[in-house]
């Protein structure tokens, strides 16, 4: 369950609370432009090529150069690792252009997280050089296309192109904004250095460009749009018990850490893409990274007097649990509502539905109960996966909803449901339906701490397109007990 949203009254409360608390996640008031007497005038900014006083100098040429350097860097790393696919020549470029696209056989994590991460670097080569979100999105597609054709000797992969481009945009803008939460361009000395270095971990491309341009040491405002109208972070750590209805899958208990970020207010109209986004990261709980989910507003209406808001969102999902692995790039339409219930209580609810442009889910061959694991690479370091690839690719759709009851801006009870359908194009001929429901109750303790119990239910159905194969249906429950904290 992603973090809850705020009503107008609650938003004001949050802002006041953040101001008073001195929270490390405190944000600056959004509508108070700080214009020092020495601030450059618009004419000067134009001369400098900056859209705002704290914005980077705009340069399409430098963005393309950075993108080229990123491709060279990735290629050099592959070459240093001895991968044959890195030995590119003009002949391999021509062959790739002549041969066209194919589905590749790389493992799930490489394709569903590795490629989006690479795309995030392309995206931020645009953002670091003053390009807008949409321009950087185009640059991501360009970087992805050039890498697929010219960065490796093996053929261009259409699943990589989609994952790198769409996933790169989602991760890129999220990382870019999170890095700007860390940076303080008005700080000096050790504090400034520490923050710039910390931001490097999240968004290395922007940080390196800032160092190269001198912006890393320049005193300025934050770039326009990089200060969220509100910010809520919450976390939970504890133990997770997973049940099973399968003999092949034993019940287990494992530790986990969950982090949620709600960036931006749900009241205001989205001026720029990702002015509001939700992010969730789960570590542990049966996998190293068991969940990474992002949803960012591309367009949205302002909240109506009744609290209703409509939005068009981009989604990125990476899920790995004992029953299935799922990764996908989606575009979603959503409606949400939030209202006050007295002075301290409020509630919110939202519903989404949309298209999964390309999703991946574990293959479940007919008669199998557990999806086969990724094969060991018989030629490690060669850079060419020979398969088999034990997950299916295809487009699909999804829908879901969530609702929460809040007290002083903190979630007391939350419920959610998500369903994901995937039509296999490449893999085992089937339709997959993945569902999960979740309910969380949190008891506030001292300060920002709380105790929570979460009940989850995962369900997987696979409908084979061959009538001779019976459908597969598996499910399991999951319970989490955790210590929670939240910051605004």
């Amino acid at each position: 369950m992603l973090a809850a949203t705020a009503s107008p009254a609650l938003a004001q409360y949050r802002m006041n609370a953040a101001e008073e608390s001195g929270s490390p996640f405190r944000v600056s008031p959004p509508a108070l432009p700080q214009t020092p007497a020495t601030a450059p005038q618009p004419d000067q900014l134009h001369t400098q090529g900056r859209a705002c006083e704290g914005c980077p100098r705009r340069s399409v040429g430098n963005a393309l150069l950075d993108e080229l350097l990123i491709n060279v860097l990735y290629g050099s790393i592959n070459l240093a690792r001895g991968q044959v696919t890195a030995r590119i020549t003009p002949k391999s470029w021509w062959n790739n252009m002549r041969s066209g696209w194919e589905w590749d056989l790389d493992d799930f994590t490489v394709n569903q997280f590795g490629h989006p991460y690479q795309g995030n670097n392309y995206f931020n080569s645009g953002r670091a050089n003053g390009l807008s979100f949409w321009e950087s999105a185009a640059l991501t597609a360009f970087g992805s296309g050039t890498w697929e054709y010219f960065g490796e000797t093996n053929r261009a992969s259409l699943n990589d192109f989609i994952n790198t481009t769409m996933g790169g945009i989602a991760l890129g803008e999220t990382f870019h904004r999170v890095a700007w939460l860390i940076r303080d361009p008005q700080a000096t000395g050790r504090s400034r250095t520490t923050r710039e270095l910390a931001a490097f971990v999240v968004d290395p491309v922007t940080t390196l460009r800032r160092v190269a341009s001198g912006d890393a040491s320049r005193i300025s405002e934050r770039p326009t749009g990089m200060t969220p109208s509100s910010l809520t972070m919450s976390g939970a750590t504890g133990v997770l018990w997973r049940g099973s209805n399968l003999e092949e899958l034993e019940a287990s208990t494992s530790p986990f850490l969950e982090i949620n970020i709600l960036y931006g207010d749900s009241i205001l109209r989205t001026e720029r893409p990702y002015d509001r986004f939700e992010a969730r990261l789960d570590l542990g709980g049966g996998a190293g990274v068991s969940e990474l989910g992002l949803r960012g507003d591309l367009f949205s209406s302002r909240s109506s007097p009744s609290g209703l808001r409509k939005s068009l969102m981009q989604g990125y999902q990476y899920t790995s649990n004992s029953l299935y692995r799922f990764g996908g790039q989606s575009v979603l339409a959503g409606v949400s509502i939030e209202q006050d219930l007295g002075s301290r209580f409020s509630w919110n609810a939202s519903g989404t539905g949309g298209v999964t442009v390309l999703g991946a889910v574990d293959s479940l061959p007919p008669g199998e109960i557990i999806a086969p694991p990724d094969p060991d690479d018989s030629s490690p370091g060669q850079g060419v996966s020979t398969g088999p690839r034990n997950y299916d690719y295809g487009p699909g759709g999804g829908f879901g909803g969530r609702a929460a009851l809040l007290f002083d801006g903190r979630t007391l009870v939350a419920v959610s449901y998500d369903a994901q359908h995937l039509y296999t194009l490449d893999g085992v001929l089937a339709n997959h339906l993945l569902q999960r429901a979740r309910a969380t109750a949190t008891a506030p303790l001292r300060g920002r701490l709380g105790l929570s119990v979460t009940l989850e239910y995962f369900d997987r159905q696979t409908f084979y397109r061959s009538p001779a194969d019976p459908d597969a249906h598996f499910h399991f429950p999951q319970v989490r007990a955790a210590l929670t904290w939240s910051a605004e």
Partner: protein
Amino acid sequence: MKGWRRRVLVLAVAASASSLASMAHAQTTTPTDGKHPYVGIGSSFTAFHAECCDREADGEHKGAALVLDGGVTLQRRLDLGARLIWTPAKDDGGDTLNSTALLVVAKYRFWPSRGFFVSGGAGMAWMTNALALIDEPSPPARAKGLSVELAAGWEWRLHRHFGIQAFGSQHVIGLGDLPTQIPGESLDNLIINYWSAGASIVIR
């Protein structure tokens, strides 16, 4: 190639030649500012090639394709819209090999005062008799799949609301695994790659 297809191709070439002639004028023309809709119609010469599993079709098929565009210019550098690519073709045996791709496409101009653009898109595609491409006997059937396109080209603005563009593109249709006539058997991972060069008229 049928006569009408040849005519379409000739028209496409003529449009390209005409647009080259207007290059000097158009390169200094800046696209209209602000959000506004656009539509485009054009044609391309297309070669395509199919492969799957351990099979590869012999040679390439060639034909003319119809390209329709519609969308919104979001800013001076960026268009966002839909593209329909219809590629009718027949193989030597007379089997119809028509394909239709419907894509969401973004077009980006790195330099708004120049005509150069790149575009990329993704969407759905449908193909008739796809198995005939790899000589697998099958009854006539339509298969659907995923399509991705990358393109680059140059647009010459002849008038504030009117332009001509020449482009080269590569698009792919991934049809996935298709069942054959033999029960329980499928041909895995059928992919059809298209290479196109063409021209279109754009009205903004």
